[in-house]
């Protein structure tokens, strides 16, 4: 086995080893911190290997036959190593490593057994995500896709005694499952049309124009559905805000940097296939842009700091999808990478705040800058990156996305994305001003977070800055053509306008927020109620699924059981009735014989 296959396999294997070890060896798991150290050690190894693989720029593909058949195996497992997978390897392992270190402090008050469970799930998650990233074909990707969804469920519902958390976990599972149904149907249809799951073979066929499959647009649409669910595109975005019931490190890892990006990664990976159906790509772009705008409006009225960040994630995922749909998949991927960094940063910083203050509500915080200056600084760095202010990394990736959408002449999405950029800056600075500045009226005694939490924060902030500077120096390789000259100032201007608006409304008090919401009353009303989508889904669930299950239950009780009961009653009654034949008297039996003889006569007569 060569190094360019072996090392990625090592990256993949280490978290698996950690998971298996923690899952099987109960005493180790129950030590809590011990389990954490095992998991951290494994992932640190993975991270180091991933960095090496990425910097060396390995390219490889290796598969092993899994389900053998005549004429080539039906299913294979293996690894596909190239530039995008390498970048994802680094992102996943790095953010996971930082999150796991952070969790040691954040979840330090948990019972050791629960903490051990947490790290077991974390290891499983990292393994699954890496397996997804390295998948050489649709089948393996789907398997790890589902595994990742399972880990999301387990980790969202980590505090399973809380009903809200349990509900949120189930909701996440259900909604993403809706998308997954489309995904698997699409995969199977594609396989039945082409006979293969493997990406390289499919891309070759696409190149050779041999993929003129009828209904390819529909198939790719179905496959896109999986991404809709997993990457929280409209209308399957409703699970992500509720998923904030999980611990903040989980939100940072899964619902900001890694799992939700799996959909974007899938679309990016299979871009040659989507390129064959431009209609679907346009759909993806429109849906992405619309999602971005929708989520941004909801973030503007949200008071829970984690929910704001969740909507922000949905919004940014919309950006990435819009880029992919515009044919600028590299731009979208770049945004995925940078967003992973600064969104994880924002979540972890928010976690530090929550840990210190004891509440998620920003309107119960205020003036925290004095109490936790370091946290405030890194949060502002993250905000600037998210808003798209140079020279931080977010500016370059967002500009690349906008440029890609503009170049594809998709005006509608472009306008939506531009407005979203404005709103993004607005709501993020709103959070900054309300939380860290202004009058201090936070309860508890806010203090700076311990080093286990601060360390990852500073590292991520530094990375955001460093990546941004590097992108500034080398230029964005992802852009195919240079973006229009007016674009950079335009996007910076949007960011500054949003920030100024937030400053005016929340810091200076120059514009009263209440009056603004009165002016925009219908929009405000809808946004606060999440546009009724949650209610719609809940109603559908109650009406259709629960109603259906009640119907089935009724059928089971009255028809199925009824038939059984009727049969048994019939048997008993027939037995009672037939008992009278056995009278014990010989003469009655002679009657029986005589009847039999008569029957024989009749039968013989009929037979003549």
């Amino acid at each position: 086995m060569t190094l360019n296959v072996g090392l990625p396999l090592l990256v993949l294997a280490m978290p698996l080893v950690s998971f298996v070890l923690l899952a099987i060896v109960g005493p180790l798991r129950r030590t809590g911190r011990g389990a954490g150290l095992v998991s951290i050690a494994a992932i640190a190894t993975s991270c180091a290997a991933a960095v090496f693989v990425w910097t060396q720029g390995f390219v490889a593909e290796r598969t092993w036959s899994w389900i053998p058949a005549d004429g080539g195996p039906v299913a294979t497992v293996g690894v596909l190593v190239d530039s995008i997978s390498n970048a994802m390897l680094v992102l996943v392992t790095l953010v996971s490593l930082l999150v796991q270190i952070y969790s040691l402090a954040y979840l330090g008050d948990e019972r050791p057994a629960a903490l051990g469970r947490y790290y077991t799930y974390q290891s499983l998650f990292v393994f699954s995500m890496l397996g997804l990233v390295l998948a050489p074909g649709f089948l393996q990707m789907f398997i790890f896709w589902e595994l990742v969804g399972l880990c999301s469920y387990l980790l969202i519902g980590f505090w399973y005694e809380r009903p809200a958390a349990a509900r949120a976990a189930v909701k996440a599972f259900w909604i993403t499952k809706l998308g997954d149904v489309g995904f698997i149907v699409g995969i199977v249809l594609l396989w039945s049309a082409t006979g293969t799951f493997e990406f390289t073979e499919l891309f070759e066929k696409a190149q050779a124009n041999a993929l003129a499959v009828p209904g390819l647009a529909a198939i790719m649409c179905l496959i896109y559905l999986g991404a809709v669910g997993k990457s929280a595109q409209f209308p399957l975005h409703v699970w992500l805000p509720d998923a904030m019931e999980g611990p903040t490190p989980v939100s940072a890892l899964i619902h900001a940097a890694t799992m939700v990006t799996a959909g974007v990664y899938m679309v990016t990976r299979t871009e040659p296939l989507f390129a064959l159906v431009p209609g679907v790509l346009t759909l993806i772009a429109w849906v992405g842009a619309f999602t971005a705008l929708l989520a941004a409006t909801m973030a503007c009225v949200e008071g829970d700091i984690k929910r704001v960040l969740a909507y922000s994630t949905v919004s940014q995922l919309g950006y990435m999808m819009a880029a992919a749909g515009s044919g600028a998949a590299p731009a979208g991927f770049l945004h995925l990478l940078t967003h992973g960094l600064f969104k994880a940063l924002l979540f972890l910083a928010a976690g530090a705040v929550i840990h210190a203050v004891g509440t998620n509500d920003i309107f119960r915080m205020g003036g925290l800058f004095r109490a936790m200056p370091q946290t405030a600084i890194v949060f502002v760095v993250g905000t600037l990156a998210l808003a798209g202010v140079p020279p931080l990394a977010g500016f370059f990736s967002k500009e690349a996305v906008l440029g890609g959408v503009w170049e594809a002449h998709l005006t509608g999405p472009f306008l939506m994305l531009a407005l979203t950029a404005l709103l993004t800056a607005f709501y993020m600075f709103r959070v900054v001003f309300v939380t860290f500045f202004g009058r201090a009226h936070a309860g508890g005694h806010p203090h700076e977070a311990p080093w286990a939490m601060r360390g990852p924060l500073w590292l991520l902030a530094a990375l955001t800055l460093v990546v941004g500077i590097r992108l500034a120096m080398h230029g964005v390789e992802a852009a195919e053509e240079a973006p229009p000259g007016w674009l950079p100032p335009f996007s910076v201007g949007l960011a500054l306008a949003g920030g100024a608006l937030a400053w005016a409304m929340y810091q200076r008090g120059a514009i009263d927020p209440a009056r603004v919401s009165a002016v925009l009353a219908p929009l405000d009303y809808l946004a606060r109620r999440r546009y009724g989508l949650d209610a719609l889904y809940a109603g559908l669930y109650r009406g259709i699924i629960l109603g259906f299950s009640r119907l089935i239950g009724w059928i089971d009780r009255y028809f199925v059981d009824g038939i059984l009961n009727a049969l048994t009653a019939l048997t008993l009654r027939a037995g009672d009735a037939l008992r009278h034949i056995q009278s014990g008297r010989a003469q009655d039996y002679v009657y029986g014989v005589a009847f039999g003889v008569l029957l024989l006569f009749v039968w013989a007569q009929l037979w003549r």
Partner: protein
Amino acid sequence: MTLETVGFWVVAVVLLASSLAVVLTPNLFHAVLYLAAALVATGVVFLMLEQPFLFAVQLLLYAGGVVTIVVFAIMLTEKLVGERIRQTSRHLVNGAIVAAAVFVGIAGFLLRAPLVTLRPGLEADATISIGRALVGPFAITLELLGVLLVTALLGALYFARSEE
């Protein structure tokens, strides 16, 4: 109206009447006596079929032996119970219907079957032929019959013994 026809009809009437009496009379003892009459009538039927040997066998075994046995049995059981055995029948109508149906069934088959009406001539004395057949082709059957009779004898003895 030949003699044969008249004779047949007379014997038939006697046979049927005594058979009906056997099954209908309330007194069991009388029933046995009527049975004896029926058996003798059957013997006469055999005579009409030109089988004198069988006529003799019928009289000896049936009318003689069987009737005697039944009479003894009745006397024994009557003695046990201690009073004259009154014989009442039950469900006469049901039995009549079933019996009639069986008769109709059999007769239906009979009357549709092509049956001979003329008797072939008698070749030899039947008795000698029967005797030859018994020790010839039917020898094994004869031996088996002997075994059966011994078994019956032993069985009857066993049942009839008094309790120790």
